[in-house]
């Protein structure tokens, strides 16, 4: 069987060539000059500013367009930094214009009755927004892998399942960059297929692979009998605007096998990009460069607070919203929102963090939401399907809202959690917040969810 690559090999070769032919730069010079200094200049040049105290979901199209121009200029001026060769990867204006012109407006993932189509979506559009749910990359033991996948996959509002990371494989430790990576990811695939079969959604697209840090897992398991080409394969660059050969190895594999790839980039709020204005600019640049370098079909920014690791910190919300608006207005990109709250299961504020950021992102033009990296995703087993269900309900309730309507709601929602967002409150684990036999929430967690829904219904008129 002859495989038809989704990206011409010559095009991928031209990307790889940039890692060797671009100007050599010290990494400190990259961070200070090509990121920090350049972004500061662009903030001034394009007057990228807003008042967080007044608005959380901005409705300023002029600002969004200037932000897009600033982001494109950053992408052109700085490019990406290859950490393996210490070279700047530079694209010409013509190359980036071609990249933007040829970005797909539609992508199908999954198969059979479980196939899902995502389309480019505009701001305030009253159209379906997909939802990805799952214990995305959160460590789980082998014996809970099938139960936790089933608990998410049985939620009818979730369109794609995202897998956890196995803590061990067949009882052994998984070592990054070794054959253990391969074995773990093959086990991840097998267990996920089995869980989906048991819930009657065998064609449900899978966000993968999450048990391997190195590209070995993907190279091995996106193959015969493993993860399918129409699953949803993750790839990313690092902050700020840095790419490694590991990312490029995955990109070449996906481009030549035709596997659907989702690309993400998580700038650091408070890092070299600076504050809200800076992360908005670097987000726009990052999304454009993700497509230019990794050639995925869909894209999401997931900025991270320098200390809390979340993206629901109030000043980060307008930055994410306006960056998404800039991209939605000026490109065909299929964009996703991402939720990384500080609260965990059985902490009521979790629902308000989710609601605030979801609404801000849905009205800003995302085609789907990734839900939820609960408690910042760093605590083993600290996530449940209930918050993913809630995120999906909020997502659909926000379809068709205007940015102005969203703004007043988001401001009030933030009031409900901001004072307690001083630290990560990881809450309870999956086994403490869910009954593992019935795969249903405990009474404590269910009651908290119902209270939050009730409050949101009553106070904001949003039907969840």
């Amino acid at each position, binding site marked *: 069987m002859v495989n038809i690559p989704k990206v011409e090999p010559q095009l991928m070769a031209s990307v790889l060539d940039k890692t060797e032919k671009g100007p050599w730069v010290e990494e400190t010079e990259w961070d200070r000059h090509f990121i920090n200094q350049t972004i500061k200049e662009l903030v001034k040049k394009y007057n990228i500013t807003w008042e967080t105290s007044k608005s959380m979901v901005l409705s300023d199209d002029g600002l969004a367009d200037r932000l897009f121009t600033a982001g494109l200029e950053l992408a052109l001026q700085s490019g990406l930094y290859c*950490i393996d060769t210490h070279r700047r990867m530079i694209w010409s204006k013509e190359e980036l214009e071609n990249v933007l012109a040829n970005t797909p407006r539609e992508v199908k993932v999954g198969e059979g009755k479980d196939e899902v189509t995502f389309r480019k979506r505009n701001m305030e559009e009253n159209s379906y927004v997909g939802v990805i749910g799952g214990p995305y990359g959160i460590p789980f033991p082998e014996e809970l892998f099938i139960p936790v996948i089933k608990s998410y996959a049985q939620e009818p509002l979730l369109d794609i399942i995202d897998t956890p*990371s196995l803590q061990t494989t067949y009882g052994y430790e*998984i070592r990054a960059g070794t054959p253990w*990576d391969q074995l773990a990811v093959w086990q991840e695939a097998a267990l996920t297929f089995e869980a989906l079969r048991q819930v009657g959604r065998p064609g449900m697209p899978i966000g993968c692979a999450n048990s391997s840090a190195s590209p070995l897992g993907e190279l091995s398991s996106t193959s015969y009998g493993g993860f399918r080409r129409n699953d949803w394969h993750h790839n990313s660059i690092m902050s700020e605007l840095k790419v490694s050969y590991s990312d490029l190895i995955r990109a070449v594999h996906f481009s030549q096998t035709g596997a659907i790839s989702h690309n993400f980039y998580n700038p*650091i709020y408070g890092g070299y990009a600076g504050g809200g204005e800076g992360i908005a600019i670097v987000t726009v640049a990052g999304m454009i460069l993700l497509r230019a370098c990794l050639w995925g079909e869909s894209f999401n920014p997931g900025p991270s607070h*320098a200390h809390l690791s979340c993206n629901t910190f109030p000043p980060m919300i307008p930055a994410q919203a306006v960056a998404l608006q800039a991209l939605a207005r000026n490109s065909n990109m299929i964009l996703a929102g991402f939720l990384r709250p500080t609260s965990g299961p059985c902490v009521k504020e979790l629902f308000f963090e989710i609601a605030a950021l979801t609404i801000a992102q849905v009205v800003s033009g995302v085609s789907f939401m990734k839900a939820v990296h609960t408690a910042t995703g760093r605590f*083993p087993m600290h996530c449940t399907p209930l918050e993913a269900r809630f995120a999906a309900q909020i997502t659909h309730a926000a379809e068709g809202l205007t940015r102005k309507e969203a703004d007043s709601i988001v401001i009030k929602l933030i009031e409900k959690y901001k004072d307690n967002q001083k630290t990560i409150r990881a809450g309870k684990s999956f086994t403490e917040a869910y009954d593992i036999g019935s795969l249903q929430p405990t009474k404590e967690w269910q009651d908290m969810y119902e209270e939050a829904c009730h409050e949101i219904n009553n106070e904001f008129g949003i039907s969840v």
Partner: protein
Amino acid sequence: MSKDFNFSQGQDILTNLLLDGDTDQAMAFTKITISDGISPMEYFEGCIAPSLEKIGEKFESLEIFLPEMVFAADIVQKINDEILTPAVKNSTAQRIVPLGKVLLATVQGDLHDIGKNMVALLLRVNGFEVLDLGINVHPEEIISQAEREHVNIIGMSSLLTTCLPYMKDVFNLLNLKGTRERYAIILGGAAPTPDFAAGVCADGYGHSAAEAVTLCKKIMETRS
């Protein structure tokens, strides 16, 4: 003369100059203060260290961002290299001794370093000498560098759970060599948890860069 110098006022002046990134004025202020009879050690302990601590606190609360702290640390480095160290060499004054020497590494298999870099910077601005080995560092390299450089503390970081076995290797190899007790070992990053740290008998776990500094200070106090 040193008795007349108002250290509190000096701290404020220096802090503002560091935050403004005004290298020339910060150097000039230091030169004048030293020439007025304040010893390099008194100046370091009475002005530089508290100023850097304040700047570190401002970063912890994100009143300022990482680049401002980096630039402030650069200026202090320049002050140390060009004014304080030569002044100490040319006199019988007491040397400026770092609080301790810390080796930092993102362990094998992991390429993420922004958190580790923040820890390195905050430790430096708080008076520690830092040996940063970078990313994807093999366990044996961590140990050989710790031995060669006579560090007090080994700090290991990872974002990825599949890199945790390489952290364990460092503990196991040190135990095999019989040199585990020479070093305090602290862990950070998204992957290790307090339970993991306790399981491998680490000397501490820090969730944030600020916690890492507190931990290192505490360790050096108990070890001195």
